[in-house]
C-alpha cells in the first residue's frame, strides 16, 4: 500500500558534481528535494520505489501490469553506474557495459544520498517506458499499490522544456498552460487530472514527466477513481474497524520554477 510519495525533477544538473562549482538556483532546488524525500522516510516505509520515465524503452503491447512490473521494469541498483554518460570525466563511470541507465534513477539516488537519511537496502528502481499509455500507467500504479507492506514512491519527472526562447526546446506557447495544469493537479492533489494528461501533447512539449506522473496517479487512486477510463469509484479499503474508507491525500508543493526554461516541480504527498 502506498503510504507517501515525493516528486522531484530529473535534470542531469542534480547528478553529483554536475555543475562543477555550486550554482545558487540548483542548490535551492536540491534543498527542496531534500525536504520532499524526508517525507518519504518519515512515513516509515518498508520499501521506497523510485519511479522514473525511461526514454530508451519502447512500450510493448498486451502486457499485464503485474507481470510487467516483475520483468524488466525493475532495474538493478548500481550506484553511480552510467553517470559518465551525462558527465564524462576521468573516474566517472560511463556505463558502457550493461543496459542504458535511466536518468531519473541516477538523479533520485543522488537526491536520496544528498538527503543523508534512510536506508539504501529499501530502494527499488522502476523504469516506466516513456510512451506508456495513460491506461497502462494507471495499471502500473495500481500494481504498485497492491504491493505488500508500506510502499513510498519517489517519482521523478519534469514539465515542458519549451517554456521560453532560451529553453532547450525553444518556446512553445502551449507549455505554460500544460505545466500549470500539472502543478494544479499535483497541488490538489487530483489524480484524475494527472491521468487525463495528453501523452501526445506532453511529448511535443518535451514534458518527460508525463508517464511517471500517470503511474503516480494510478497509485494514488488505484481503483480508477478519476482515471482515464472513467469507470472508477472512490478508493475503498476496509479499515481495522471493518468500515470502508477512502484515503485522502495531502500535498505540499515545495518548488515550482523554470530557471533554465524547463519546468521543475518538487512536491510531497502523505495519506491523511
Amino acid at each position: 500500500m502506498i503510504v507517501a510519495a515525493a516528486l522531484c525533477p530529473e535534470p542531469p544538473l542534480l547528478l553529483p558534481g554536475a555543475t562543477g562549482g555550486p550554482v545558487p538556483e540548483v542548490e535551492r532546488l536540491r534543498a527542496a528535494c531534500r525536504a520532499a524525500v524526508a517525507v518519504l522516510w518519515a512515513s516509515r516505509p518498508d520499501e521506497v520505489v523510485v519511479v522514473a520515465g525511461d526514454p530508451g524503452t519502447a512500450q510493448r503491447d498486451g502486457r499485464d501490469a503485474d507481470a510487467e512490473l516483475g520483468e524488466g521494469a525493475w532495474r538493478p541498483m548500481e550506484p553511480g553506474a552510467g553517470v559518465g554518460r551525462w558527465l564524462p570525466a576521468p573516474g566517472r563511470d560511463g556505463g558502457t557495459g550493461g543496459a542504458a541507465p535511466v536518468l531519473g534513477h541516477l538523479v533520485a539516488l543522488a537526491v536520496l544520498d544528498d538527503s543523508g537519511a534512510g536506508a539504501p537496502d529499501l530502494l527499488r528502481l522502476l523504469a516506466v517506458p516513456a510512451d506508456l499509455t495513460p491506461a497502462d500507467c494507471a495499471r502500473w500504479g495500481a500494481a504498485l499499490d497492491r504491493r505488500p507492506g508500506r510502499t513510498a514512491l519517489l517519482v521523478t519527472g519534469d514539465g515542458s522544456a519549451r517554456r521560453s526562447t532560451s529553453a532547450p526546446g525553444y518556446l512553445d506557447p502551449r507549455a505554460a498552460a500544460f505545466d500549470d495544469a500539472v502543478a494544479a493537479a499535483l497541488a490538489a492533489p487530483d489524480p484524475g487530472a494527472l491521468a487525463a494528461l495528453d501523452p501526445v501533447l506532453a511529448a511535443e512539449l518535451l514534458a518527460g514527466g508525463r508517464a511517471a506522473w500517470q503511474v503516480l496517479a494510478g497509485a494514488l487512486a488505484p481503483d480508477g477513481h478519476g482515471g482515464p477510463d472513467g469507470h472508477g469509484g472512490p478508493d475503498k479499503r476496509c479499515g481495522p474497524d471493518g468500515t470502508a474508507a477512502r484515503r485522502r491525500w495531502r500535498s505540499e508543493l515545495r518548488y515550482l520554477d523554470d530557471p533554465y526554461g524547463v519546468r521543475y516541480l518538487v512536491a510531497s504527498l502523505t495519506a491523511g
Partner: protein
Amino acid sequence: MSGVSGGSVGAGGSEVSGGSSVSRGSGGDVGAGGGEVSGAPHYLLRDRTVRRGELLVMAIVNRTPDSFYDRGATWAEGAAFERVREAVAAGADLVDVGGVKAGHGSPVDVAEEIRRTARFVAAVRDEFPDLPISVDTWRHEVGRVVCEAGADVLNDAWGGHDPRLAEVAAEFGAGLVCTHTGGATPRTAPHRVAYPDVVADIVERTAALAERAERLGVHPRRILVDPGHDFGKNTWHSLEATRRLGELVATGRPVLVSLSNKDFVGETLDAPVGERLTGTLAVSAVSAWLGATMFRAHNVAETRATLDMVAAVRGDRPPARVLRGLA
C-alpha cells in the same frame, strides 16, 4: 543514506583517459624535435598542400543579424567585407562564411540563406583570388550555389543532416567538413544528451560521414573531421572531447576544431560571451598540441599567435627572431 551513490564520482580518479594520446597522433613525420613541417600531404585546401604539423586559422565571417558572438556586427555586406580584409591581414588561412545563426532564432529559408551568402562569396573571390573560402551551411541547395560562386569548402556543421550536401562537394571538387553533432537537428540546443562514450561516438560518426563522402567522390585529402564542441554536447562532453582529441587525430584525418567563445568555455570559466578569449586560446593551444590542424576562430590575430607559439614549442615552426644569449 550514505553509500547510495557516494562512490559515483571520483572513484578510480587516478585513471586519466586519453592520457596516452598526448603523443602526436598517428603520423610519424612530426617526431619529437623535428624542426620542420614535412612529409606527405595531410590536407588539401584550394591549391595549397598542407603538411602535417601546419596549423591553420579559419576566420569566422557571419552574414547574420543575430549570431551569438558578434551580434550582427558584420550583417551589412560592407562590414563583412572589412572583416574579411582584417582577417586575412591578421593571418587567417581561410574564411568561413555563414548565413544562419547556429542556435534557435528567426527562421532562415534556403532562398534567404543564398541571398546572404552567394553574392558575398563571389565578391570575396573577386577581391581575393587565392583566398580559400569555406561556407558554413547544412543545405545542399546552398552548397551548390556557393560552390558556383567560388567556395572551396563546405563546412557541414550539422553533421550530415542533409545527406546531399556531400554529393554537391563531390560534384564541385570542394572540400567537406564532417562534424559530430550526436544526430542533432539543425538549430536545436542539446537537452540532457548522453553518450556511453562520447569520444567513441565522435570517432565513429565522423568516420562514417567521411567514408561516405569519399565514396561519393570527395577527395580524401579535402575532408576534415570536427568533434563538434557544444553541438549535441554538454560542457562535460566538450571537455572530454578536448581531453581525448588525440583519439580523433589518430584516425589520420585532419581535424578541425571550432572552439571560439563557445558555451563550454564560458561555463568552465563562468565567463560571459565577451570574456571568453583567454579560455578559447587555452583550449586552442591544448587542441593544437594534441594534433588538430584547423582552428575556426573569431579572434584571428590572437589565435594565430597562440598557434605559432605552440608550433614553435612542438618544433614544427622556427621562432621568428632569436637573439637572446646568442650575441
